[in-house]
């Protein structure tokens, strides 16, 4: 079990190294796109609120980058894996292809981490704003962990679904774009029961924890933490169910790779 885990981790680190130029290119393009949008958004902000707006925009876009990377780099890899004939290779050796795909968290988090650091440096030097200055780092960390768990579960669910049906790349991107809307809505602007309903939407509760961590102002802390646990658990369970279902379907029907490329 441990040697398989080591092999998967080794594989992804090795790929990350061999395709380092691609990953650096991906990081650069991610940074530039994010910067392009942040600059546009800051045009609306008065100078006296630039500091707060910069920090909020930075953390929202960081969360989006994590979600986007986990769904695209993890979720969309199944097509490539099938086309290479790797699913059968792993199945006959008793290794779940989904465990291999889960290892994609290594390149996805590397790209997210690198782009976050680069954006933080650029914003700090351009606008003289320390975007990493937060009131409760622990709350931000907890929020980020939940975001990662939820987005990874989403990525795995997509990978499982793509075994049986094609997932249109464009729609996946559109869906990820819409997530920004969820991340920006403030729970404070809503009254119960609407605020509870908002927290039930994936990523909304962890992003609320992150916002609390940045501003240092607590609002619906217990509710946000509870909803984060509930939603993350539901998403993990759903991903596990879909993975198991896809695995048994694969063993019964085989891999359909024709027409994928």
């Amino acid at each position, binding site marked *: 079990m441990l040697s398989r885990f080591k092999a998967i981790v080794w594989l992804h680190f090795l790929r990350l190294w061999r395709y380092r130029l691609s990953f650096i290119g991906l990081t650069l393009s991610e940074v530039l796109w994010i910067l*392009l949008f942040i600059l546009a958004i800051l045009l609306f902000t*008065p100078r006296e609120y630039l500091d707060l707006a910069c920090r909020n925009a930075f953390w929202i876009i960081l969360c989006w980058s994590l979600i986007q990377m986990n769904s695209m780099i993890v979720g969309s890899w199944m097509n490539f894996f099938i086309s290479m004939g790797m699913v059968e290779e792993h199945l006959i050796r008793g290794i779940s292809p989904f465990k291999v795909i889960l290892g994609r968290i290594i390149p996805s988090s590397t790209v997210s981490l690198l782009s976050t650091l680069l954006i933080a440096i650029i914003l700090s030097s351009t606008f003289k704003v320390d975007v990493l200055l937060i009131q409760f780092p622990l709350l931000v960390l907890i929020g980020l962990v939940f975001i990662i768990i939820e987005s990874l579960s989403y990525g795995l669910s997509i990978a499982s679904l793509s075994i049986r049906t094609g997932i249109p790349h464009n729609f996946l*991107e*559109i869906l990820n774009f819409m997530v*920004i809307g969820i991340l920006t809505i403030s729970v404070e602007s809503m009254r119960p029961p609407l605020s509870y309903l908002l927290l039930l939407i994936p990523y909304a509760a962890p992003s609320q924890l992150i916002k609390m961590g940045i501003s240092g102002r607590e609002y619906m802390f217990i509710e946000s933490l509870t909803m984060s646990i509930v939603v993350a658990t539901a998403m993990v369970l759903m991903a596990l169910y879909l993975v198991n279902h896809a695995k048994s379907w694969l063993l019964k029907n085989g891999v359909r790779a024709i027409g994928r490329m």
Partner: protein
Amino acid sequence: MKMGKIKTLLKSGVLLDLYFFKNNKGNFIAMLIWPYLMLGLVVGMGFLFGSPSTFKKNIGFNIDPIAYFIASTVVMMASISVMWEVCGNVLFLRWLGALPYVIVAPHRMSIILVLSYVPRYLFYTFIQVVEFLPLLVLLEGVTAGIVKTLIMLLAVTVGMLPLLGFSALFASLLLIIKEESNVLNWLNPIILIFSGALYPTSLMPYWMWLVSRVLPTTYTVELARTIALIGSPELAPIMFLIGILMGLAVVYNILSYMLIGAGEKSAMKRGII
């Protein structure tokens, strides 16, 4: 090149797109949704973190932020499309294994890249500009909405001419260098940043402003953005920007025609595939 050959290349471009949309309806719907999503993201988050009055103050003009970002979105989508479809086509052909066949075809590669793409560009940008017509009519009224849509159509059509040469120029570089996808991935956003696609060039540092002056997209953005000025757009600045774009079109297309030959030679010398 004979007229008949040009007609064949243009016809192949038209048929390719018609059948692509016929067989990929999901892609067509996604194409319609994308521009509104980009606009919604910038304007939505902008209104959340600030106000339209601050926007006008920061820009220094009496302009409508929604019309401003409609123009930005349209030009961004158009220039991304040109860069990927002309420049990225080299990459796509290489992946398919069809690049050697295209290179040894009777037409010059730059001509194939540009002519087979022109119908697609016109078709795509027409749809993307016109899909903002209802929003512009809602914001500005029927007559102003239609006039501003026509100005945007003019901007993206005239803006296409230098951009085609500019992209073919990069295509020739892609034939020479390796790891082309990495270059193209970050080339697009960097060109858009320097062109002032979302953040105006007038607010940039001087050295960035200087770079922006040689990019054709800068003038396309400025031309499209005349629609954001409150009141009727003036003819003089529009004609001035069209003049600059035509001049750049001549320069970039001559340069690309000369340099793509060098790219082709280098690719053939190395066996390219």
